[in-house]
């Protein structure tokens, strides 16, 4: 287990993220243009969605898909409540800040999903392809809970501004679901046509993307060091574990494979850093973005990448008696 953890730490993927962090820490002017970073993320979403769909096409429709979607939405809606409770107990964040942060932890980070998938692949562990659709379902419900938490405690004003259409139809959800459906419709025959683009270069593109995330995370951390009190940072390390346990339990109840359990645990453990921050800036502008952005991107993401996903896979293996 320790050996596997070290092996994970020495993967090009993790080291690329570290390179970004270090470069930002040294205040190097290394940077990935915004358009390129967005292009890389479109590639990753399209590829991961497509692959999930192709696997569903190959494996046949699984009746657990419907249950999984429900469970994912449920996890997304409920986890913010736990997160909010923990935050109020562990830190001195205002209720609005705590609600905003909590929303991030109910939602998910696709790149953490992708990193977990890469780890599983290199260990030869398979997982249910339709989990990519579950991931998409988990993006939005957490926002609802977060806003409910914020309103309950603060000015009722927040209600009006929630851009629901924009939240539910945000680009990454539409792209992920769309690519999933395309993959499903075209199946392995379609995959044969596009795998020179979607499969062969995938891990290398992921490295560049993680380099960029390291740069952004490092700059965020440097900028908002003061916003990250000890209590808040501890929350950022504890909450993924809480999420993972909840995710594992749900996955176990759904009867998922070892790989599927690790993936659902990872999703529950991960925190959004694209969709939810944008929604919060519109719907809860009073919340301090420095807190939720640097916590999600600078604390929880690296924790999951470096340690978390290895741990969740070990737990899943143990749980399934493997």
């Amino acid at each position, binding site marked *: 287990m320790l050996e596997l953890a070290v092996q994970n730490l020495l993967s090009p993927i993790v080291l690329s993220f570290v390179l970004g962090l270090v470069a930002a820490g040294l205040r190097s002017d290394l*940077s*990935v*243009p*915004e358009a390129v*970073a*967005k292009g*890389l*993320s479109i590639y990753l979403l399209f590829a991961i969605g497509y692959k999930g769909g192709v696997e569903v096409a190959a494996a046949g429709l699984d009746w657990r898909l419907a249950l999984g979607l429900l469970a994912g939405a449920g996890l997304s809606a409920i986890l913010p409540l736990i997160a909010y409770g923990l935050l109020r107990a562990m830190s001195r964040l205002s209720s609005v800040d705590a609600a905003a942060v909590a929303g991030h932890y109910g939602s998910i980070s696709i790149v953490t999903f992708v990193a977990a998938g890469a780890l599983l692949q290199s260990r030869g562990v398979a997982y249910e392809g339709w989990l990519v659709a579950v991931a998409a379902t988990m993006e939005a419900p957490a926002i609802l809970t977060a806003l409910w938490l914020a309103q309950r405690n603060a000015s009722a004003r927040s209600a009006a*501004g929630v*851009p629901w259409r*924009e939240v539910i139809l945000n680009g990454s959800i539409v792209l992920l679901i769309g690519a999933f459906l395309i993959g499903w419709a075209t199946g392995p025959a379609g995959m044969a046509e596009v795998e020179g683009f979607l499969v062969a270069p995938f891990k290398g593109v992921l490295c560049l993307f993680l380099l*960029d*995330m390291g*740069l*952004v995370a490092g*700059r965020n951390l440097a*900028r*908002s060091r003061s916003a990250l009190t000890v209590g808040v940072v501890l929350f950022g390390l504890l909450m993924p574990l809480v999420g993972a346990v909840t995710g594992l339990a749900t996955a176990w109840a759904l009867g998922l494979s070892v790989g599927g359990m690790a993936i659902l645990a990872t999703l529950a453990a991960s925190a959004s*850093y*694209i*969709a939810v*921050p*944008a*929604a*919060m*800036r*519109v719907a809860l*502008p*009073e919340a301090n*973005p*420095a807190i939720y*952005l640097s916590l999600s991107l600078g604390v929880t993401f690296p924790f999951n990448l470096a340690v978390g996903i290895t741990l969740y896979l070990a737990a899943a293996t143990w749980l399934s008696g493997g």
Partner: protein
Amino acid sequence: MQTHTATRIEIIIESPALRALTRELDRAAVKGYTVLPVLGGEGRSGPWTAAGEVGSAGGMVAVLTMVAPERAESVLDSVFEVVSRHIGLVSVSECRVVRPERV
């Protein structure tokens, strides 16, 4: 060349709030607006850069609208509706435009 007085309103605002702002501008019946990209900057919340950003949450945009002087006040009210809750910066100045039907 004959020119006509107009009011130039320049708004710097977070990207996620852009839709809300343009909705208000539409409601205030401005004849048009233009959105310019922003690379980065610094304010009370420290320095930031758009470089490498994947989502829109970290970014800002600049919105420029020219309006007829008599409608400037009401447009400003609409703009402030959105901007008051956001970190945006609104600046207003006089200018002259060549074609009055556009403002």
